[in-house]
């Protein structure tokens, strides 16, 4: 839709369900995927809670949108940066997060993890390497 290719970073720092930001951020990512930009997602601070597995919203009556993260690979959104320090401070490890994978078309469609565990310092580098930073 456009000839410019920009680096877009979606920054997720808030927990899901208490507020709508996580859910409406995902809606932007899905629509944005059609624009063929260079898209990354950052999960830090309470944003890492968005990716936990086993979310079950039946009793609170809100829509469970956590499965959508697993569909991101189908939209060619394959770079989900997760901050290690944020996980550790919250007592979480990668095992507590969903498996989010994509098929690497450059590698015989091998299934690879979209989650890239990085340090806080590396997260700062990712942030500094963007054209557009959208925060939710």
């Amino acid at each position, binding site marked *: 839709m456009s000839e410019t290719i920009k680096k877009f970073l979606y920054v997720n720092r808030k927990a899901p369900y*208490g*507020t709508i930001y996580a859910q409406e951020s995902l809606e932007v990512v899905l629509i944005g995927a059609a624009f063929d930009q260079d898209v990354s997602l950052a999960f830090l601070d309470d944003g890492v809670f968005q990716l936990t597995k086993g979310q079950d919203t039946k009793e*609170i009556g809100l*829509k469970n949108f956590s499965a959508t993260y697993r569909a991101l690979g189908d939209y060619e959104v394959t770079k989900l940066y997760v901050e290690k320090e944020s996980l550790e401070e919250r007592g979480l490890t990668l095992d507590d997060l969903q498996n989010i994978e994509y098929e690497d078309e450059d590698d015989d469609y091998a299934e690879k993890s979209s989650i890239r565990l990085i340090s806080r310092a590396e997260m700062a580098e990712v942030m500094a390497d963007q054209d557009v930073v959208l925060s939710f």
Partner: protein
Amino acid sequence: MKFGIVVSEGPYQHQASDSAYNFVKAALAKGHEVSRVFFYHDGVNVGTRLSIPPQDDRQIQEQWTALGKEHDLDLVICIAAAQRRGLLDENEAKRQGKDADNIAEGFRISGLGQLIEMGIQADRTITFGD
């Protein structure tokens, strides 16, 4: 026991109105009385009849209207907060020269005195907000 409930945040943006709804349902199910639900701050936006959430999501306003009808709840929207935010009933719209209104069935607009009165009459006052 008589509960009075305050809802301080708008629908969908915060979980507050959902938590309040689940609390009120549970209280009624246990035989308690809910003397009033008072919508304040952005909470007034719960009472718009113009919302159209996605079909696979809950319809927050309709949930309240239905619960209110079933249990004869007094769902009060604060007039001062509502005017700031553009939530009107037919009378207010006419009085203020606005060409439309948007309040949903089962809600009524009234003054902040209703919040104080609720606090006086209820055995417990509980606020859901941000």
